[in-house]
Structure formats: structure tokens, C-alpha cells
């Protein structure tokens, strides 16, 4: 078996999620090559070559891939992926965008968002927002898979010494072009990979009050998230959303503040190691999944939490 892993990156550094995809590849077994597609992405290729268990790094460095447009990436991966038994990408917005397109071009099914590998053609994935877990078996010659990074402990990013090869495949489908992007600037860790996440819900009442959570987050080195209710209410931007329709997180510690615990939110954080819930409604469903629950008014509890943490950290 031979596996091609699509590297997720920003043209300067490899995303942590790729190391989790490599762990999924390792669980499948076989030779693992990594495809780095981007523009001026040489540093990413060097990083990928150091990751554990990588046989070869293939680099497609061209302006056509600079903004990760799905149309161009799909044409590239459909060609570069020929001969591989498995093609894997992380289930971030880049992988979710281009991978189904590759599947259609190759006339194979895609297995989305796997959280475990049973064997080389059988995989476990959540359905119904994580309220059911399906085991599915593929009969296609090429298995096209997106990987939920929280399901796999990342392989080491150091110690490997894979060869790096340039791929001379330039695919510009001419269907789409990049216009602009607005990326949130933040010094806090990325939600998807943070060891600690503190999230606020509708109980926060407005966006300004999220500053309270940010203070606690800065003490803990935590990422700041939000429930869909808080996003829908316009308190905070959508890229902070944790849940079925937002980001899936599984940190060591998840602190849910003023979040009732709708199914759709639980689907996004239910795999966290330790869950803390702070809510004034003692009937809130979030308490059923919390390891530590505190029934309290968050506007009193969060400043207290900040003070108590200052004492012990």
C-alpha cells in the first residue's frame, strides 16, 4: 500500500493537523508520501521532510496553488495521486473543499472526517452530529479520506529525513480566482490545537463580555471559542464557533461558560479530556457531560476564576 498525505499549511509553516493525518496514515500502514502544494512553500516542504514516517515529499510550487483554490488543487491531486491506494487530507476547510472534487474526478467515494482506522479499507466516522458513530468499508480502488485531527495523536514533527522532489504539474483550471481574505489576527493558540479552550455561549450577553474570557485564556495559554448561539447572536465571528457546524476540538481542558450544551455544541467538544461547565441554570444539559460543574452567575464566577488562577499559576 502507498499513501499520499496532502499537507495543510499557509505557505510558511506546516499545520499541526497534518501530523495527525500522518498518524492516520501510519495506522493504515504502507509507504507514506506527502504532497506540499502552494506558492513559495519550500520551508513547508523542509518541515514535512522532518516529520516522522515520511518516505518522500512531493512539492508543487506554483502561483496556481498559492491560495489553495479547490479547483486547481483537485486537478493536481487527481493527477499526483495516481497509483496511491489512499489519499488523505485533514478535514479543515481546505481539505473539505477540494477532496470531494478529487473523488468525483477519480470516480470514487470519499470517506469524510474519519476518527479511527479499523483496517486499510474500513474506517470509523461520526454521523448525525456525532450522535451516532458509523463504521464504513470502501470497495473503491483508491480510498479518498479526510481526517478529523482530534481523532489521532500527532506523529513527531522531528527526526525524519525524507527526500524532497519537485513535481512539475501545473494545473490552473481557470474557473476561479482569489480576491481577498480577512484572517483573524490573534496571539492566542489555534482553537483546533490548543491544550486548553475556554468558550462562551449566549449567556455572555454580548461580544464585549468575551474580554472576560480572554483574560482567563491569556492566563492559561488557552484558545477562545464560542457556541453557535453566541455566533448567531453576532457576539463573535464564526471562526470561533465550536460545534458540528464549526470547529471540532478535543483539548486537555474545555471550559464552557454560559453554554447550555445543545447537541450541536457537544458534537464539537465532547472528546475533550476534562470538561468544566459554568452556568447559572442547573438544568442545563452541559452539566451532563461536564467533569466539573459549577452553578453560578458567570459575571461573578469568571472574575473570581481569574483571581484564583493568578494565585496558583
Amino acid at each position, binding site marked *: 500500500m502507498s499513501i499520499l498525505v496532502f499537507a495543510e499549511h499557509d505557505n510558511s509553516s506546516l499545520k499541526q493537523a497534518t501530523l495527525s493525518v500522518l498518524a492516520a496514515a501510519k495506522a493504515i500502514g504502507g509507504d507514506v508520501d506527502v504532497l506540499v502544494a502552494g506558492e513559495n512553500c519550500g520551508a513547508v516542504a523542509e518541515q514535512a521532510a522532518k516529520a516522522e514516517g515520511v518516505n518522500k515529499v512531493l512539492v508543487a510550487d506554483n502561483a496556481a496553488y498559492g491560495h489553495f483554490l479547490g479547483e486547481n488543487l483537485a486537478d493536481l491531486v487527481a493527477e499526483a495521486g495516481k497509483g496511491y491506494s489512499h489519499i488523505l487530507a485533514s478535514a479543515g476547510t481546505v481539505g473539505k*473543499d477540494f477532496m470531494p472534487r478529487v473523488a468525483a474526478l477519480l470516480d470514487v*467515494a470519499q470517506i469524510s472526517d474519519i476518527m479511527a482506522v479499523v483496517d486499510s479499507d474500513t474506517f470509523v466516522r461520526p454521523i448525525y452530529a456525532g450522535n451516532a458513530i458509523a463504521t464504513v468499508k470502501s470497495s473503491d480502488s483508491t480510498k479518498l479520506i479526510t481526517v478529523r485531527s482530534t481523532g489521532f495523536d500527532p506523529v513527531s514533527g522531528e527526526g525524519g529525513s525524507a527526500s524532497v522532489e519537485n513535481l512539475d504539474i501545473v494545473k490552473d483550471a481557470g474557473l476561479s480566482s482569489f480576491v481577498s481574505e480577512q484572517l483573524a489576527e490573534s496571539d492566542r493558540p489555534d482553537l483546533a490545537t490548543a491544550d486548553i479552550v475556554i468558550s462562551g455561549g449566549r449567556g455572555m450577553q454580548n461580544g464585549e463580555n468575551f474580554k472576560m474570557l480572554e483574560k482567563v485564556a491569556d492566563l492559561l495559554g488557552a484558545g477562545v471559542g464560542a457556541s453557535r448561539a453566541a455566533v448567531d447572536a453576532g457576539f463573535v465571528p464564526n471562526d470561533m464557533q465550536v460545534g*458540528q457546524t464549526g470547529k471540532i476540538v478535543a483539548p486537555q481542558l474545555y471550559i464552557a461558560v454560559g453554554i447550555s450544551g445543545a447537541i450541536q455544541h457537544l458534537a464539537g467538544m465532547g472528546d475533550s479530556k476534562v470538561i468544566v461547565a459554568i452556568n447559572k441554570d442547573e438544568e442545563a444539559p452541559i452539566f451532563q457531560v461536564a467533569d*466539573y460543574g459549577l452553578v453560578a452567575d458567570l459575571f461573578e464566577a469568571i472574575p*473570581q476564576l481569574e483571581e*484564583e488562577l493568578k494565585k496558583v499559576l
Partner: protein
Amino acid sequence: MKVLVAVKRVIDYNVKVRVKPDNSGVDLANVKMAMNPFCEIAVEEAVRLKEKGVASEIVVVSIGPKAAQEQIRTALALGADRGIHIETDEEVQSLAAAKLLKAVVDKEEPKMVILGKQSIDSDNNQTGQMLAALAGMGQGTFASEVVVEGEKVNVTREVDGGLMTVSLNLPAVITTDLRLNEPRYASLPNIMKAKKKPLDATTPADLGVDIAPRLETVKVEAPAARKGGIMVEDVAQLVDKLKNEAKVI
């Protein structure tokens, strides 16, 4: 321009999902079904394009059992002009759905196809992208804003870390994210009117598409339940537990 919208009949998002005791799937007997929430957003966007004078006709298509006509009627009540029902009682996986929709696109030649980014049953997030590939169109996935400008459409997409805007040649495929719009409710007069709007029925065989599944579901299980935790008295106790018992801070 003509806009094609695909909608899917799924379990109502408020229904608590139960796994069947024999682990063959999820129990859908006698549960409330509804239009997939992301598909409602797709219908709403098409209707808004029509209200702005950008879209001239909205065709809504659904694949599924006879009962999927209910969801087509809902879309007609919300403002779509006519419906196409591709009737089948078989399981239709994403690639098969994309091939069926491609057959409809070939016939209808819409300038834009709008779909939900994923359905809340299988959570695949695939059909729109697959359709775009098969039809040779560009794709604006996870859209939070759609602006048509002549023969192009600018789509602002919800991506990891923020927003990204792309320009696509028309015809194009767009898949909706949550913040694209807030769907309206159908009024009673419009529901009555929708009953008289045209709805054509066809089948996968009529369209010449093989819908045999590529993935076999081996089993479906309930997720492992978290064991219940404890309630703490105050913040000081919480911090103590996190530091000394859970050892996570």
C-alpha cells in the same frame, strides 16, 4: 438567470437521534422529517437573488422517496418556481447524488447551482464539490456572501481562521454556510399556491445514472457516553480540582 437549488429530506434537527438496537443504522421510523437546515439557506439565497432581479427562475430538485416531495413543496412555498423529484427508495450516497444532479444540470443548464454545505444526517460535506467537478464548474463552498457581477460571482467563504473571497466564472456551484442568510417562513397563502406549482418526477434510471453505493455501512453505534462528573461549590474548589485532581492546569 436560472438558479437550480438542491434540497434534501433529513431527520428534523430537533429530534433526538437513536441508534437501532441491531446496529444497522439510525431509527427513522415515525420520526419527524424536514428540509436539511443548510438546504433551507440555499433556497432562501436563491429567493433573495430572484427578489433582487438577478435570478429569473428557481428550479428546486430533491432526490429520495416519494415523501421528499414535501420538501420540494416547502421550497416552492418559499419562492421556488418549479420542482423536480428524482424518486428512489435506495440509499443515495454523495457521488451518486452528484451524478444525478449533473444529469439535471445538463438538461436545465442553470447559471448557478446552490446546495447546503452538508446534510445533518450523513455529515459528509461532499455533494456540491462533486457536482462542480463533474459539471466542470468552479465552486464557492461554505459561502457567507454571494454577489453576482455580470458573468462572474464573488463568493465570500467561511474558512479556518476567517473569511476568503473568490471570484468564480458562471455557471458555478455554491454551497451554503450558516451565516449566508436567515431563512424565512412560508406564509399560508404561499403554501396554498405552492400546491399548484409544477413538480416533475423522474428516476435515476430515467436519467441513466447508476446509484449503487460505494461505501458499505458495517455498523452504526451510539457514541461512548461520558461518565457523569461532580458539581463543585465554588470557584476556589474548581481551581483546586483542576490543579490537584485532574492536573490539567
